């Protein structure tokens, strides 16, 4: 079975941002440009996460989704602050194929059932953001790891699957943005406990990390952010105007982020089959038949 490589694009207002542990966000550019490039380079899906999810930002998110859906023809998942069936309907209407739910699902687990009945299980991805506790257990958080839920992440995963989630997006807050590798134990514990696909997120710094989380972590798909974004920016500094907010200078010098080895999708996908991880060849995305 082919695993999926899913570029994750964190969105704040009109911009693509990236942080560490989902904090300290920096502006990288316009998400549509990154999305277009990833599509052409063989991304299997895309994930847009509205990391601020304010009422103020919602219209710009829908606009980004709309523009993206006009030119990319792979599945697009959108998450961040979706609280009602109307919110879900709005992003689906804008062109998303699936939605990712976290806070709304934690606050009212029945919402998973309602939403999956209304839109189909395959449309509903439940996002679980977990932090490893001193006793080795994992606890689920909301609001980018700021708000504790008291839920055991593995138990919550099982419950979410039973309520009708079509997939689980499992993010290790501890590893997110660090390049130290995925949390293999977190991923494996959840992947082995549920009958639905698990997308591993948070910590990728090398191709080897991707191989590990598939083979040892039993993930069905992986999210990549920094590795891809940094390669994109290095290649194509582009014409985006970064002067208003943040800049990409730090990426070019990188400093403490040196754990993250930037890589492009064709490179990553070329390396995987030899390591026993089948995937859709990147070349198929580039060839217009």
């Amino acid at each position, binding site marked *: 079975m082919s695993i999926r490589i899913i570029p994750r694009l964190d969105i704040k207002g009109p911009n693509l941002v990236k942080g560490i542990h989902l904090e300290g966000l920096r502006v990288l550019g316009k998400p549509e440009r990154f999305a277009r490039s990833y599509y052409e380079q063989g991304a299997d899906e895309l994930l847009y996460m509205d990391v601020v999810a304010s009422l103020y930002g919602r219209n710009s998110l829908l606009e980004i989704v709309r523009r993206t859906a006009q030119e990319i023809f792979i599945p697009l998942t959108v998450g961040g602050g979706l609280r009602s069936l109307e919110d879900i309907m709005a992003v689906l209407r804008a062109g998303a194929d699936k939605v990712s739910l976290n806070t709304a699902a934690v606050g009212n687990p029945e919402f998973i059932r309602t939403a999956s009945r209304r839109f189909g299980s*395959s449309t509903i991805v439940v996002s679980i953001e977990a932090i490893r506790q001193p006793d080795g257990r994992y606890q689920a958080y909301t609001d980018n790891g700021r708000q504790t839920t008291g839920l055991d992440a593995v138990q919550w995963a099982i419950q979410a699957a039973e309520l009708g989630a079509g997939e689980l997006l499992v993010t290790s807050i501890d590893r997110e943005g660090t390049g130290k590798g995925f949390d293999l134990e977190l991923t494996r514990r959840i992947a082995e406990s549920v*009958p639905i*696909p698990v997308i591993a997120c948070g910590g990728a710094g090398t191709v080897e990390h991707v191989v590990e989380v598939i083979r040892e972590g039993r993930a069905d798909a992986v999210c990549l952010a920094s590795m891809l974004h940094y390669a994109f920016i290095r290649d194509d500094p582009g014409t985006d105007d970064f002067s208003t907010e943040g800049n990409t200078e730090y990426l070019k010098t990188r400093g403490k982020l040196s754990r993250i080895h930037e890589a492009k999708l064709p490179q990553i996908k070329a390396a995987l089959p030899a390591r026993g991880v089948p995937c859709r060849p990147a070349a198929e995305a580039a060839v*217009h038949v």
Partner: protein
Amino acid sequence: MSETKPTRVAIVDYGMGNLFSVQQACAQAGLAAAVTAEPQTVLETDAVILPGVGAFGDAMAELTRRDLVVPLRDAVASGKPLLGICLGMQLLMSESHEFGRHRGLNIIEGEVVRLPVSAEEPPRRVKVPEVGWNPVWPVREDAWVGSLLEGIPAGACMYFVHSYYVRPVDATLILSTTTYGPITYCSSLQFGNVFGCQFHPERSGPAGLKIYRNLATRLGRLYAEVERS
């Protein structure tokens, strides 16, 4: 290619499925498509696309409630191309075993059955639903000639999201097969002017878009014939 847009395609809206991406794929292929729930529009357009994501029983109930069942059958009988996608293909069959037994549109004789959950214990088990990219293979070397799959390389990966698959009684209708875990199933079929695919061509990158382009070419030829006659 899209400067004259003579074609009119009805994307059937019965409240389920992502119609937007289907519409975008049509636009990309130069097909003038409209999302519609109007039975009359389904009858009047030159081609029909029946998309769908969700449960079979709910979908049939919605088609019935919106008086679309007979128009869809009539559209097929009139000879115009009909493209059924994912649940839209499954609905063409006689019946489904999803959450009980449900009658389908009965345009193609056959049934819709669940993907088997692999008997193997975790961590090696095959997950259901199947979500992701999987190659489609022609049943014979020339099986795709003249079909909407023409020109797509054998073994091209397409994007699937499903827990059920179709089993047509007449196996010669099958255009392509795909293997998931322990089984090889029908991933696309053709029955006269009806084409069905289990994958989502509008979410399958360039290979999937080729199906929409083929549909546009086919309609273009039909118009040329009409003009000549």
